[in-house]
């Protein structure tokens, strides 16, 4: 794609959970890239598979989950490479790093992670400083005393007052926002090239969230760390991301530069997500929530997975699984493009200057006969009740 090899490349990643009720296809063929110092968003409703995708990169998915296909390369090293053996069984390829290498060379050292819930991510029986220090010692070539110094400096850097005193305190003596700062300090202190932030601000209240985002913005600039930022919040995406991957039911359905995504929205789902954001210039009544709920990943709908809820759905959407590609010229029947620029050209242009080309998975932008297809409106409205019934059945599935 771009001239230089990106920092992280995820290709056709598939992660499944083998439950009693069936196979949950949590991540189903996801591909994206992260360049050096780039902040890439992974956005979608809960259940879209974004967290699983993020954790698959570090091979942190636990039983009964398993990466069943795809490749993840990082700085030229193969973190994940699953291939099918002659009799169809899954095999890890020769190139793939061993568990030990993952542990010593990648986790913490090269890629760090920040989890969603700061209240649960720190061990309650150890001091905060001790925990930060332990990870520094493990992932950087420093002595214990140096690690302690680094930890205190980093705690100060992320805005924890009196870091020397608080170093010896326990997690329960910290507020949620303060704990999240500790986790960020932990991640940065190991000096990784990439930090995976798995909904790090979801559990915080909005003012604290704002402070944390500002902090990350500043620190990202200072340390030039690349980020994969997992969130369900389009507002967060707008604030900090460089490029965005929108996920729906295990698939990336639109990826673009953050400006393109917001100003040249292609996929009906992305558009629906953006419309559901409250804005000061609109009343609550004009808020437009997406109808229905996301179907189960055990049994994804045929064709385009979004067709059960899509306002633009037509007969063809039920049959044809869209390809993930630059939107085709002239096929933009819905007229979402605002300036008449030809999308494929734009994609090529983006690629040329190393930006994320605009890719989308929607049959509207393919020549498969969308214009002549019957509308599926009736089914889309019925999807709400149907979705609920499915959810009831689905609750026990996990």
């Amino acid at each position, binding site marked *: 794609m771009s001239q230089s090899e990106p920092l992280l490349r995820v290709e056709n990643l598939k992660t499944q*959970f083998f439950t009693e009720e069936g196979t949950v296809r949590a991540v189903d063929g996801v591909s994206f890239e992260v360049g050096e110092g780039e902040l890439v968003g992974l956005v979608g409703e809960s259940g879209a598979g974004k967290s699983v995708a993020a954790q698959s990169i570090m091979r942190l998915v636990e039983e009964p*989950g398993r990466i069943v296909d795809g490749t993840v390369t990082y700085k030229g090293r193969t973190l994940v490479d699953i291939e099918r053996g002659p009799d169809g069984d899954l095999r890890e390829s020769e190139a793939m790093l061993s568990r030990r290498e993952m542990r010593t060379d990648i986790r913490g050292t090269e890629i760090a992670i920040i989890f969603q819930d700061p209240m649960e991510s720190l061990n309650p029986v150890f001091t905060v400083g001790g925990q930060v220090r332990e990870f520094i010692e493990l992932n950087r070539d420093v002595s214990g005393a140096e690690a302690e110094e680094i930890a205190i400096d980093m705690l100060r850097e992320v805005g924890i007052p009196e870091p020397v005193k608080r170093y010896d305190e326990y997690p329960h003596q910290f507020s949620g926002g303060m704990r999240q700062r500790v986790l960020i300090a932990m991640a940065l202190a190991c000096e990784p090239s990439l930090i995976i932030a798995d909904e790090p601000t979801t559990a915080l209240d909005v003012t604290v969230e704002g402070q944390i*985002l500002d902090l990350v913005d500043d620190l990202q600039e200072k340390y030039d760390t690349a980020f994969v930022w997992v969130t369900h919040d389009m507002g967060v995406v707008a604030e900090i991301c460089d490029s965005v991957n929108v996920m729906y039911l295990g698939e990336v359905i639109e990826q673009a530069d953050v400006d393109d995504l917001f100003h040249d929205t292609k996929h009906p789902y992305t558009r629906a997500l953006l419309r559901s954001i409250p804005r000061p210039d609109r009343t609550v009544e004009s808020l437009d929530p997406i109808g229905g709920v996301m179907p189960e*990943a055990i049994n994804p709908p045929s064709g385009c997975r979004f067709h059960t809820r899509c306002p633009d759905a037509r007969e063809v959407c039920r049959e044809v699984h869209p390809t993930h590609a630059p939107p085709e010229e002239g096929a933009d029947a819905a007229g979402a493009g605002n300036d008449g620029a030809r999308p494929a050209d734009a994609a090529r242009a983006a690629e040329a200057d190393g930006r994320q080309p605009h890719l989308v998975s929607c049959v509207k932008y393919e020549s498969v006969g969308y214009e002549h297809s019957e509308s599926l409106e009736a089914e889309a409205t019925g999807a709400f009740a149907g979705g609920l019934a499915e959810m009831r059945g689905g*609750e026990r599935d996990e």
Partner: protein
Amino acid sequence: MATTPDIENEPSPDREFNEEPAAEQPKARVGWQYTLSQVRRDPTAMSGLVVIGVATLVAVVSFVDGVLFAYLAGFGAFASLGVEQYAIAEALWVSPIAETGAPILRPPAFLTNELYPGEPGTLAHPLGTDHRGRDLLVRLFYGTRIAITVGIVSTGLAMVLGMVVGSVAGYYGGLVDDALMRGAETLYAIPFLVLVIVFMVAFGRNLTFAMIGVGVATIPTFARLIRSRVLSVREEEYVDAARAAGVRDRNIIMRHVIPNSFAPVLVQATLQVGVSILIVAGLSFLGYGAQPPTPSWGQMLSNSRDYMLPNPWFSIWPGLAILATVVGFNLLGDGLRDALDPRINN
């Protein structure tokens, strides 16, 4: 930023789809149908149910038999056998050499023991006989009745009283809570067995007081459990709402607190039946349970102590019977815990 929405906050309360399917757990309260179907699918719970079912059946049959025996004995039947008999099955199977007065310990079928070398047991007494020539299998059967009754009655008593104590303590808090919980702690501080024995010595050395004693001694277990549930339910908004709407405390406890504590109490009760059976066996072993000639497993074990060398089987069977029954209740309890709510951890 401050106005950023949460696209996850959809209005539907039924949404529960989480990122990690693996981490998701079944909900605790999804109605009886669901619970039953979960239990039915759990092999642990089902095997426990089978064991308990068999034991209960045996208990019922031996009960009917005992009643019939008493009725027939009223007419002077069986008097000629000259052994201390207990029921029809026993009377029919009594060993023919019962009159000699010496200990009669028939080995199980086709085995020999040191009292009768060279004379293996017969199918007439498949598990052998006890020291008085009574068929061990029959006595084991009759022991089931005592074990099941005592286990269930004492646990039921403890459950009801524990619910009352626990919900009152948890709901009213403050001094009431302190007093009741200190009381429960006190009961707990006296070793179970000692408490029940002292209780029986004070009130009566029979099975009824054994059951009451074990029941009272078990109150703290249930009281603690209910209290902790009450404390959490009390904070729920719907309870606040009910209180604000002027619903009486008693009704709140009955309508909200107790139903919400149902799952853990049921699990605890099932496991407790097993524990109570073990305790009553211990009591009987020490001579503080069912009094002869009523057969109970603990008492059989106590009798068997003098004959462990010549005939170990006498000691083995009653223990296995206790083990099997208690395993049944533990299996059911574990299965229920998994089915009702996997998050209840002891």
